């Protein structure tokens, strides 16, 4: 839509203006890791990172969400909660922005999820191209790059003294327009520079997953012993799913005291046997093999069947932090090679 330039020196000014009028969440270093937190001044930000360990999806699909409040017991009353909060997420990576677009499929459809959709609608995603992908990054396996603007409202790319600013839609335009004095139109040479930065980042990515025809292939190998082989070393923790930017499964529970209560939804994980355990004691997915396979199939077969997109963005978090080195690049690539 628009190609602009923002001088690096003007970034603090830009951020200060944003913070004045909006709740702004940005990458902040805390205890040695990067997390997305609300900031009160630009200096709190840290833009020298690859990815946060905890995915920024949590700002839209909160790990704990109050659905509504109630007075508990048999004479109940319900009280709705306000979900209209507006915010800006600054410095989100293209892969994480894509994950939010992927999640949107699950939360729209026949039954619209007001919590996710309202928050997405009320959030402006101001992205920052990734210039130093890490070892387990593989976003390029899904036809995207560390500098794709596709899923963002605005994307900034560091091209030296300036940020090359891509404004992709009206939501983004509204922001840049309100501070038009900070932005200059970009020249062809700037576009070239962005392309160079993008190519450099793409070239750093050295691990690749073979995803060609994977959904169809998985249709043929559901019962294959390969899955037991993969799953046997799984210890069954929820790290991979909780850190995954596209995992959306949740639990709903009532949490109450004698006088007040709330129905809350909390991220859940298909790695946990209780997840599918019936009240009768029967469990359709009793073994690790069932559960690990479900995680892979949900991303590479069920999601493509239902929404025509693989539910993985190649951020590599599940690989980085799996305590037993279950490596989704390796698993999916090998699944493609298994003889049905």
């Amino acid at each position: 839509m628009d190609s602009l330039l923002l001088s690096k020196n003007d970034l603090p000014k830009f951020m200060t203006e944003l913070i004045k009028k909006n709740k702004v969440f940005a990458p902040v270093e805390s205890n040695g890791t990067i997390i997305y937190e609300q900031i009160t001044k630009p200096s709190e930000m840290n833009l020298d990172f690859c990815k946060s360990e905890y995915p920024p999806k949590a700002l839209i699909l909160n790990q704990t969400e109050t659905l509504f409040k109630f007075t508990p017991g048999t004479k109940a009353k319900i009280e709705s909660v306000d979900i209209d909060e507006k915010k800006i997420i600054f410095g989100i990576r293209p892969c994480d922005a894509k994950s939010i677009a992927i999640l949107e499929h699950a939360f729209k459809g026949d039954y619209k999820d007001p919590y996710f959709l309202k928050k997405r609608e009320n959030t402006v995603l101001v992205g920052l191209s990734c210039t130093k992908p890490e070892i387990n990054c593989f976003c390029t396996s899904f036809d995207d790059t560390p500098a794709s603007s596709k899923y963002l409202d605005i994307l900034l790319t560091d091209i030296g003294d300036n940020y090359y600013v891509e404004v992709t839609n009206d939501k983004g335009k509204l922001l840049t327009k309100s501070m038009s004095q900070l932005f200059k139109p970009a020249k062809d040479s700037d576009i070239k520079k962005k392309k160079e930065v993008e190519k450099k980042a793409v070239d750093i990515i050295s691990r690749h997953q073979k995803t060609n025809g994977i959904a169809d292939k998985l249709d043929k190998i559901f019962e294959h012993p390969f899955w037991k082989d993969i799953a046997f070393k799984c210890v069954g923790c929820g790290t991979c799913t909780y850190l995954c930017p596209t995992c959306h499964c949740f639990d709903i529970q009532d949490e109450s005291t004698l006088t007040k209560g709330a129905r809350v939804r909390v991220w859940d994980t298909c790695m946990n046997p209780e997840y599918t355990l019936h009240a009768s004691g029967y469990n359709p997915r009793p073994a690790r093999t069932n559960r690990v396979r479900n995680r892979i199939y949900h991303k590479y077969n069920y999601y493509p069947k239902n929404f025509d997109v693989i539910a993985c963005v190649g951020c590599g978090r599940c690989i980085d932090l799996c305590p037993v080195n279950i490596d989704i690049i390796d698993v999916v690539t090998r699944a493609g090679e298994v003889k049905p």
Partner: protein
Amino acid sequence: MVDNNQLREAVKKTISRDDVKYVVGYEKGTYGFQTTPCFAYKPEDADKFIFSPLCVHNLSVFPMLEEKPPLRKGEEPDKRKIGVVVKGCDSRAIVQILQEKGLDRDKVVIIGIPCTGVVDPKKLEKMFPGHIKNVEVKDDDDKFAVTVDGKTQKIQKSELIPDKCKTCEYPTPILYDILIGKEIKSNKNEDYKKVNEFEKKSLKDKWEYWEKQFDKCIRCYACRNACPLCYCKECMVDQLNPQWVRRSVNISENTAWNLLRAFHLAGRCIGCGQCERSCPMDIPLMELNKKIEKEIREMFEYEAGVNAEEKPLLAMFKPDDPEEFIL
């Protein structure tokens, strides 16, 4: 230095036995400094087994993860043994589980490895970031020989080993059926340096520190699942009726979870550090465990997982047990 051929022979010999279901050990991981648990079901599978200072996992969790699906009509339960490759610290987990009768001694074949300290993978990744090809690490006296892209560098062990190895008193497995190589004696002892320092802090500072740590917790329960001693059939955190800990992820519930888990491991934690290593949010869980371990050592002169014949701490009572803490 562990001879991989000797290890593979031992695995081969073990899996060739009719009464062994599988052997769990280590193989090279999918990238960089990773190693990963692997399983031998037949003698040929032993060829991929390795042991190096990168073999950080405590594999004694695997016999405890065994799923027992309902048997079909006429089907016999598989009563065969499981072979496990263990380091000194790992073996203490098995000893402790045996004490608690969570496992029968004749259900495991223990392949012991005398260990001179493993590498803390997080420290290594920081020193050599972003390597895809397998990084090799060899034991070289008081140094590690780290080979990256064909070049070998020698690095002081103290820079790369986790805290637990710095004070390891049991480098040789306490219990084993086969020992790979020679027994190693330790001249180190647990001095609880970190705990002692932390104890000096004010209550307020202590609380601030832990509040910050527990705030990071995402309740993935990797600490629990990677822990060989967390083998309850139903964890208290999953119980619904009554519900001890709520599902909501907030400082109150997170604190409840982390403290309850630490207390459930009182007198049981053998200090292998699996929980801390597995924690994706880098919560220093071993500091909690070590504090409790220290208290127990001082009060009851008891150490978990060092004597399979002994009763577990909480199952024995001595008339002269200290009781100052009882109001």
